[in-house]
């Protein structure tokens, strides 16, 4: 358990967090690994955990009829996978697949949600760490939707010369 605490304390996501809370989080966590191609979770499943990737890459996918699985985004080391565990109905909205060997720390969602409800200060700290992740993913998705490489001309020919 001490090892997991030390590991969490080193993660950028938990940097600066009160050691007591890191100790609590370590109590709700365990090390996991997924081989390439293995699914961390499936769309529609109950979101009973979330993960912090230590190593490897995870693809967030959705199934498009006629196309099969389409990767929306890949997530790498030090990134959090999943926030559907935070809000009802606590269901995953994407599939998450290990692109390569993934080592991660898995947190039990119910344990952490309960602590957030009991201790608003802890809940606030957790949200202040999770919201920037959500915001950055939203911004990245917006940038993807802009299709910036599709509309820009060649270097240095803005005029479509």
């Amino acid at each position, binding site marked *: 358990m001490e090892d997991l605490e030390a590991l969490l304390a080193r993660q950028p996501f938990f940097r600066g967090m009160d050691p007591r809370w890191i100790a609590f989080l370590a109590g709700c966590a365990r090390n996991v690994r997924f081989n390439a191609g293995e699914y961390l979770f499936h769309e529609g499943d109950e979101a009973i955990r979330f993960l912090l990737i230590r190593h490897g*890459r995870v*693809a967030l996918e959705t199934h498009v009829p006629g196309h*099969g699985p*389409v*990767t*929306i*985004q*890949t997530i*790498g*080391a*030090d990134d959090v996978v999943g926030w559907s565990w935070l809000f009802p109905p606590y269901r995953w909205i994407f599939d998450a697949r290990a*692109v390569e060997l993934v080592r991660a720390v898995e947190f039990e969602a119910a344990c952490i949600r309960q602590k957030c409800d009991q201790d608003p200060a802890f809940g606030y700290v957790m949200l202040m760490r999770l919201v920037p992740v959500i915001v*950055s993913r939203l*911004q*990245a998705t917006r*940038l*993807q939707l*802009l*299709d*910036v*490489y*599709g*509309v*820009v*001309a*060649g*270097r*240095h*020919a*803005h*005029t*479509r*010369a």
Partner: protein
Amino acid sequence: MHTLGRDAMVPVPAVVRRVRRQTRDTCTVDLDSPRGQGFSFRPGQFNMVYVFGIGEVPISISGNPQRPVPISHTVRAVGAITTAIRGLRRGDVVGLRGPFGSSWPVEAAEGMDVLIVAGGVGLAPLRPAMLHVLANRERYGRVALLYGARTPHDLLFRRDLERWRGRFDLHVAVTVDAPVLGWNGGVGVVTALIQSAPVDFAECVAWVCGPEVMMRFAVAELLRLRVAAERITLSMERNMKCAVGLCGHCQYGPYLLCREGPVFRYPDVQRWLTIKEV
């Protein structure tokens, strides 16, 4: 300082040595040095390439500054002139003026970590800087290249990327906005790769080139990670015509891109980046 011809406004004939297809709409044109004379350029500079009877267009030099001949330009076909350039064949002749403009601060970055962030065709002006760094690898700290493209089919310089990925002294991360079946690489915007780059953000320089929207997001992320604003360098893009600071076509705020740019320190263009339609 231009080195081709005696008059910066007069194109000199240059023979096409080779045209290499990069993607469905992008190619690299290698030109012999005009009249066999020498040619040199600094990473980030551009030439004016004139297709006789059609027109002239500014194109960044994408070749190796250590071996500047053949003179390489990587061109995406987006209009009449660039489409004509893509249609060139070995032995064809074009007009050439240059090199023009400012360059990536490769000497000033010595002793520091280097983070290169490229989007789409923006890898072309950064490639000479990358090649300069690799040719002088011992003078730099950790080096990372982050490259984003629209799809896997739109990745430029694939052979370079594969070779660079095989090096132990270089971090290369590639991502695409829209994957295709079988693509096992990164998916997402290039700016999302920045925070994972193995460089010391407090002690690194960042060179950024790509669509302006991408560069704005990249700068925001770099600043969030505590990269010093004065160590962020961008390559801007505007419609250049004369390339010698006379016509004003490429005005960008108080600057003429052909003369003071296209490569700028971020603090010098910070104000103009956020003003629409500048």
